[in-house]
């Protein structure tokens, strides 16, 4: 019985490790913190494994645990963010450069995410992952109408940020 449970857990993590990695990437810039956060999420998933309610999609449940752990983890490690070692170089693009290459756009996106508040980070992550408004509402626990409003606002901010940097 226990063996079966262990096997199920290992398969679950193997199939959905992308969710854990994406959440860790959204909330932690420091690679060491990121690894710690993934470990912490896996522990909480294992501890809550028996509580899984199958009326929800497994991905919804995993996103909920991962984001909840990430926000709590971030709160505990709030001081560590000041010694971030970013995954990508986060410098602003040099003056006179007309075109952004992929790397620069990614840097800008990561910088933008990093500046967002905790819940907005979760919202943008789910939007970028192309989750439907209904699924985002399920994960976050707000109405679909509210999701639409907040996604619209965050998209505008994102557009503004990119166009501002392009013009500079």
């Amino acid at each position, binding site marked *: 019985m226990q063996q079966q449970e262990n096997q199920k857990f290992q398969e679950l993590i*193997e199939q959905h490790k992308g969710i854990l*990695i994406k959440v860790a990437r959204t909330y932690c810039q420091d690679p060491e913190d990121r690894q710690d956060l993934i470990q912490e999420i896996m522990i909480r998933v294992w501890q809550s494994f028996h509580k899984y309610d199958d009326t929800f999609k497994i991905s919804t449940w995993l996103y*909920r645990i991962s*984001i*909840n752990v990430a926000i709590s983890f971030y709160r505990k490690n709030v001081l560590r963010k000041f010694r971030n070692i970013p995954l990508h170089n986060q410098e602003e693009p040099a003056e006179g450069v007309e075109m952004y290459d992929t790397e620069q756009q990614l840097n800008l996106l990561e910088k933008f995410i990093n500046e967002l508040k905790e819940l907005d980070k979760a919202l943008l992550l789910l939007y970028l992952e192309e989750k439907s408004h209904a699924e985002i509402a399920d994960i976050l626990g707000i109405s679909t109408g*509210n999701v639409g409003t907040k996604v619209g606002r965050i998209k505008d901010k994102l557009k503004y940020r990119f166009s501002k940097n392009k013009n500079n």
Partner: protein
Amino acid sequence: MKELWQSSNTKLEEVITITRKNTEDITRLKVNHFLSSMKPLKIFTVLAGFIWVGFGTVILINIITFHFSQASLFFLLSAGVQILLTAIALIIYIYQLIVIYQVDMGGSVVATQEKLSLLKSSTIWIARILFLQLPLWTTFYLNESIFSNGQTFLHIIQAIVTFAFAYLSIWLFFNIKYENKDKKWFRLLFAGKEWTPIIKSLELYREIEEFKKEKVYFPA
């Protein structure tokens, strides 16, 4: 933007590996019991609280039972209220630790974070209650002979100190709140890193309240 994000995630998934050994190690973890989930500092705080309240209660009961006629009422009252306030703070602290431990992380993000941040920020209440003890530290050593034999000058100093501490404790009780978190005295009082998650919880709670509000959106 979505494509960019997703393609970079694929790269990241190749770099960060979660090995079978990682997951196997986790499945070997026993069910996390409340006590084993507590950090050493929290265990120390609870133990120190228990010893203080227990020790104080035993001494007070002993004095009341066997030496009541010789005891100073000032001491009995000051020590009694001090122990009572510490016991209330300790009960709130333990209750809070148990409820935080029981929170289901699989719940929706807003509801779970709201519960967690509200519970964590209630630690501020513990600080407010403990500050109420301040004037008691200026009265426990008083006795009747001080009043009958002491000098007026010393009585005046005693009254000033006691009233100043009483005023300060009441002022702190009403002013230790989120709205004052950026004030200099507040930051000085809650400067240690153990307070950082509490202050962060207060901020997050406000953020959640704001996040839950539905507002009309006008596209740019």
